[in-house]
């Protein structure tokens, strides 16, 4: 590890510790709630990014994994009276398994078909949650889920829960970082850019897509359990198509295929969402408008755009030419 990298990691570690510590002092209950939900959304956005950003698989059904994670937690915790932590392990394993099963057929699909198939997955999960009343409680959902104790600290206090959620987020970030910067991540990025290259490099494309589906599902399931533990009440409407769409747009807007992009996307959209409450009923109208504007103006995502701009600002003139051609994405423009 180079010296610069060491400093970089120390800085990030410091931010983590400071973040978790600082979360204990947040007094405003409203802000606390917003922050906790934003952190859970960030974990979800990262799980989407594994598929969309790193492996190039569209996921329009991430709310399905999210919902399954939350419901496994809810059912095990309330019906079977398993403690939070054990339910959590089950939730992660089960959603990972669901990711595997979903991946078996869908890894063979591409583009629009994959999008519609994953969307179908989300709709099916939502349908089951809504209608399998004997197990899921139907539209009424599940009440009375236990908020966990972390050793002897009750996470019922928002501050503690925020600290816990943040710590989870950092663990997820570290996990993704380690995997992405490994032969698995290389295989992912390779098959995303060009599947045929992946073939000739000896990469079993389907296997690595499956791994991505499992990991993505597991992480989303974790976020679901976290959500269930925080809210103590879950109902199907949280886990619908809108949730899936909002997640994928968060990732794309922030900048897919990066770690910071989805975080930035979550932060901005959470902020925009709260700010738009001032407009009460017009909130989602403006939200939709912002979405379309952002995608049409910055199709590459906010984070990559600013990264490029900032890098561009600091590079020498000689290098600028090559960066400019990179920015053009190698597409040939037709006369119009």
């Amino acid at each position, binding site marked *: 590890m180079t010296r610069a990298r060491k400093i970089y990691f120390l800085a990030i570690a410091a931010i983590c510790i400071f973040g978790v510590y600082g979360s204990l002092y947040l007094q405003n209950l409203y802000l606390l709630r917003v922050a906790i939900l934003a952190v859970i959304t960030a974990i979800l956005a990262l799980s989407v990014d594994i598929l*969309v950003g790193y492996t190039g698989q*569209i996921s329009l059904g991430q709310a399905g994994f999210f919902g399954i994670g939350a419901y496994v937690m809810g059912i095990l915790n309330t019906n079977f009276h398993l403690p939070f932590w054990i339910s959590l392990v089950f939730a992660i394993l089960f959603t990972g398994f669901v990711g595997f099963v979903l991946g078996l*057929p*869908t890894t*063979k*699909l591409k*583009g*629009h*078909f994959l*999008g*519609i*198939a994953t*969307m*179908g*997955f989300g*709709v*099916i999960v939502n*349908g*089951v949650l*809504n*209608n399998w009343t004997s197990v899921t409680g139907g539209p009424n959902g599940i009440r009375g889920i236990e908020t966990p104790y972390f050793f002897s600290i009750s996470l019922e206090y928002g501050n503690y829960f925020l600290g816990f959620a943040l710590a989870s987020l950092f663990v997820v970030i570290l996990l993704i970082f380690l995997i992405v910067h490994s032969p698995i991540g290389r295989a992912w990025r390779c098959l995303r850019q060009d599947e*045929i290259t992946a073939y000739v490099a000896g990469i079993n494309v389907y296997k690595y897509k499956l791994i991505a589906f499992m990991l993505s599902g597991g992480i989303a399931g974790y976020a679901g359990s976290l959500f269930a533990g925080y809210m103590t009440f879950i109902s199907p409407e949280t886990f619908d*198509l*809108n949730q899936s*769409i909002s997640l*994928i*747009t968060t990732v*794309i807007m922030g900048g897919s295929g990066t770690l910071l992009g989805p975080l930035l996307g979550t932060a901005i959209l959470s902020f925009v969402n709260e700010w738009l409450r001032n407009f009460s*009923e*017009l*909130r*989602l*109208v403006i*939200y*939709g*408008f912002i*979405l*379309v504007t952002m*995608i*049409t*103006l910055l*199709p590459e995502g906010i984070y990559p755009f600013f990264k490029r701009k900032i890098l561009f600002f600091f590079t020498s003139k000689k290098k600028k030419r090559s960066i400019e051609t990179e920015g053009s994405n190698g*597409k040939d*423009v*037709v006369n*119009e």
Partner: protein
Amino acid sequence: MFSQMVVNGLANGALYALIALGLTLIYGVMNLSNFAQGEFAMVGAFAAYFLKQLHMGYLLTVILSFAVAGVVGLICYFLAFYPLRRSNPLNMMLSSMGVSIFLVNLSQYIFSPTPKVVETPFSDQSIQILGVYLSEQRLLIVIVSLVLCGLTYWVLERSKFGRSVRAASIDPDTAMLYGIPTNKISMITFVVGVALTGIAGALTAPIYNVFPTMGISLTLKAFVVVVLGGMGNIVGAILGGFIIGLIESFSAGYISTGFQDAIVFTILFLVLIFRPQGILSKVRGEKV
């Protein structure tokens, strides 16, 4: 009971066919999976509701809903899709989702979420054919849908414009070499595609009422229909519409209405796994 389900299924199927037709046209020419398709049905339905308030005749409102949905479509095309015409399909898809959110919530803001009733001169009379009841409104839906599907098919297959659309969807670059302005073609296709859906909305309004979120489930079904019939396949979309209508009607009759969507999507999964090219298309070899 059985034959009643068949008739209901076919009536809904005609509606799905009409919406899926627009969706598949747009997909074929623009390579866009338009997630806002159902919202244009909603726009058409609200147009019918609003015009009805002005004491216009129902049939006239149905025709005008075509124009209203078309105009809204044109604006959306230029704001949300034209700038992305050379971007990747994923961005286009997301942009259509943004359009969907925008339209749903705008209509919620303007008209409130409460369902509106649209009266029709056909609604409360039903006719009996061979022991099966069919309301006149449903009969109207079937007739208008079939006529529009047939008309679209005829235009595509027989007219000069239709030739251009088909050429542009098969090979856009070569189409340009032979004088076809592909950008203009995709604009017209988009507008017509969503305007047809607008009519579907106006037709369904008297039966299912009008409310801002009515489009979402229509979009989902239209996608299932299009995948079933083969993306970009016109005949497939029409046939697929009826199949989905029937499946839905049977699953509601024999299993439960709540599971209706889940069952439809399970079938979608099976199709995607075993016949991803749709039920009508032949298997094509993938070229490297």
